[in-house]
């Protein structure tokens, strides 16, 4: 069920497929797309992990790594509608709600060298959270629902719901840039 919702979200978010609609042909075509292959392998590894087939789960997760360079641990618990626009380099070890979006080379995990530690050491993300490119969320922090983590932000504290988190060196998203003349 989660996988079907993942594919639906992928079809809705992908501009190339949106015009053609969510037809069965498009759904089959999505299965061979690297985004969905990555999600399928993660869902399979998580299923095996939950069924206590830990070694098989780990093998599938490593296949995911060697094929697509995506490091999502099988213990991670991610809700429906996972979207990975650019899977290579994405690292995740934690828990997340529905409609999570992880952009390129984003990292979510514990703030110490982890390989296979409990997921409680990683972040807990709410529903509809977006993690920007090159952003990292480290440690057992909580991120509220509908929050967007901007690119290149390194978050190591709790973030409220419906917030936008940006690096302090960045310009305020609300202020307009002064134009000469």
């Amino acid at each position: 069920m989660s996988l079907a919702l993942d594919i639906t979200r992928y079809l809705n978010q992908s501009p190339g497929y949106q015009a053609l609609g969510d037809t069965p042909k498009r759904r089959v075509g999505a299965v061979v797309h690297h985004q969905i292959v990555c999600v399928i392998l993660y869902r399979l590894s998580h299923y095996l992990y939950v069924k206590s087939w830990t070694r098989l789960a780990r093998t599938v997760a490593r296949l995911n790594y060697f094929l697509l360079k995506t490091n999502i641990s099988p213990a991670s618990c991610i809700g429906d509608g996972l979207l990975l626009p650019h899977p290579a380099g994405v690292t995740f070890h934690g828990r997340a709600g529905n409609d999570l979006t992880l952009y390129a080379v984003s990292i979510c995990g514990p703030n110490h060298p982890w390989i296979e530690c409990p997921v409680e050491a990683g972040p807990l993300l709410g529903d509809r959270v977006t993690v920007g490119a090159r952003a990292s969320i480290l440690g057992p922090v909580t991120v509220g629902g509908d929050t967007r983590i901007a690119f290149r932000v390194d978050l190591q504290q709790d973030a409220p719901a419906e917030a936008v988190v940006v690096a302090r060196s960045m310009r305020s998203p609300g202020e307009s840039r002064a134009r000469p003349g």
Partner: protein
Amino acid sequence: MEADQDHVDWKETVRRLRRDRLRLATLIRETPRRGRASVWFSPSYTCVLLYRLSHYLYLKRHRLLARFLWHLNVGLTAADISPVSDLGSGLVVVSPAGVTIDGNAKTNLTVMPLSGLGGEVGSRVDVGAGIGLPVLGDDVYLAPHSGVLGPVRIGDRVRLAPGVFVTRDLPDDTTVQPFSIRFFKRSHLR
């Protein structure tokens, strides 16, 4: 006691690999029997194994074979660890994808995802790792998205916070703090 780069023979390579495995097994926190197989087939260890072999072959002047293993490492694990780099035992690369290492380091280097060491283009300074490359001490920790650039010396037990890039020398027992962040309510942006 680590051997000099010129004395990294096969025995020393195997010794370093054993220390790498032990340190990785400690991080995996498994029982020794299960941890052994888990370590051998881990991407973290695969990238370190290929690097150690390429480094050994490079020192034995099998440059073509060393380059082949280097490129195999890039293709298989996406970790770009130059065979010229001399990294001491206890090397752990938590998630190899996107990691780039070009420089020297002593023992127990911890490389978190998407961090690395690199050179400065155009620099002619050599601090011991080659022209424009950094030298790291013992027990250095590179947090995610952090790095050391240029011909600098980093002391022992230095910890870099996430997103920090260092371009100057650092003494022992230094912790480099991360950049601060700001929160905005999404309703204010509409």
